[in-house]
């Protein structure tokens, strides 16, 4: 399990890193929890690895103007335990606690997870439900991509060559909101066979806002917009959950067929809605 030889650079500044990434066969190293296993299997063999781990300030968490800003290099552990994230984006903190195991959470990063875009990754469901904005920069560009436009296919995102995820911006969840993340963890890998993240706001007993993000079921995470609309029109949660995944492609493998995955997405949407409703005031 020895990776192919490569050159290693550890830039001290973002400018230096972006300059390196502007050309050549170079790959970013963040927490290494996906890249290093791939390099060991020689599924990835970059000529040069650019380690972002030496650049100060890429892992900060701040709250300003109704948004929580989380730096791409914030580890899953930091997101899970950050008082600011727990108070203002509890859905994200809860989702982080479901990722892998403690050793993986100590190293793996938010930016690395979403850039890698494993179809079975946990974060994408929460980022969709939270309507996150992802700030993406390169040596000569700086743009913001909505989570709904970011995850394009399995291991494929809206990132262009030379671009890196710099930070994720999340609107602060209202304290009256209810939220929940329900996951079927693969028994061997721990990844999400299916994971459903939900946010709900209720007024006078009626749901006035519903957001549902689904990961694991298809080649990329998606918003269950038809179910959201039904909920906002007053449909019962069971009825809304029953349309989750309709018209979406579903993955099939030895562990779970496409039909079973779709079924799991609906069951777990119902459960996540029940949890969210019990938390909504």
């Amino acid at each position, binding site marked *: 399990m*020895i990776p192919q030889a490569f050159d290693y650079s550890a830039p001290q500044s973002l400018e230096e890193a972006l300059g390196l990434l502007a050309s050549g066969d170079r790959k970013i190293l963040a927490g290494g929890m996906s890249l290093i296993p791939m390099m060991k299997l020689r599924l990835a063999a970059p000529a040069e690895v650019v380690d972002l781990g030496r650049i100060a300030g890429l892992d900060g968490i701040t709250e300003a103007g109704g948004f929580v800003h989380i730096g791409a290099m914030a580890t899953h552990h930091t997101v899970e335990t950050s008082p600011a994230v727990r108070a203002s984006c509890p859905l994200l903190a809860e989702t982080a606690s479901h990722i892998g195991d*403690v050793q993986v959470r100590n190293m793996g990063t938010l930016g690395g997870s979403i850039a890698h875009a494993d179809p079975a990754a946990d974060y994408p469901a929460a980022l969709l439900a939270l309507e996150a904005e992802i700030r993406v920069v390169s040596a000569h560009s700086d743009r913001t991509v909505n989570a709904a436009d970011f995850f394009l296919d399995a291991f494929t995102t809206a990132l262009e060559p030379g671009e890196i995820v710099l930070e994720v911006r999340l609107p602060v969840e209202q304290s009256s909101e209810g939220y929940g993340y329900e996951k079927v963890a693969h028994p061997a890998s*721990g990844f999400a066979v299916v994971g459903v993240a939900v946010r709900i706001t209720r007024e006078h007993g009626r749901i006035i806002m519903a957001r549902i993000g689904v990961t694991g079921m298809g080649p990329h995470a998606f918003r269950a917009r038809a179910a959201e609309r039904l909920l906002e029109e007053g449909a019962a949660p069971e009825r809304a959950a029953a349309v989750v995944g309709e018209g979406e492609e579903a993955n099939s493998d030895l562990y779970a067929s496409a039909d079973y995955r779709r079924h799991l997405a609906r069951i777990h949407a119902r459960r996540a809605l029940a949890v969210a409703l019990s938390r909504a005031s």
Partner: protein
Amino acid sequence: MKRKISLRINGKPYTDEVEPRLLLIHYLREVAGLTGPHIGCETSICGACTVMLQGRAVKSCTMFAVQADGREIVTIEGLAANGALDPVQQAFWNEHGLQCGFCTPGMIMATKQLLQDNPSPTDLEIRHGLEGNLCRCTGYQHIVNAVKAAAGKAGA
């Protein structure tokens, strides 16, 4: 091209020239001569290679030695002080928290982290905290007992 790294392991300074592709576990075992951290799966699953990096448990088979440049590492060899076992080591001994012992260095490092974050964990929290460590022998119950004993909660 080789790179020079300088780090502290168990409080002692080390400086070596290494290839960037050298995994930290191979550096620890083959260059630094510390064979306490074990290689079980080498695929980031079993946790036998767990060491502390800057005070947090990590799988040293899923990290390059160059990433540890300038950092502080503690391996199982760094726990016992003045000939006395660390309380977590002693608890694994007392509670028969091991059989063959292969997983034990990783289990103990992960337990150090668990008790640092949560000094009096429940059974469920212990199992959740040790999710990244596999044992083929004990059936885990004695490991959970050992962690509880180390937390000063034996029999609770």
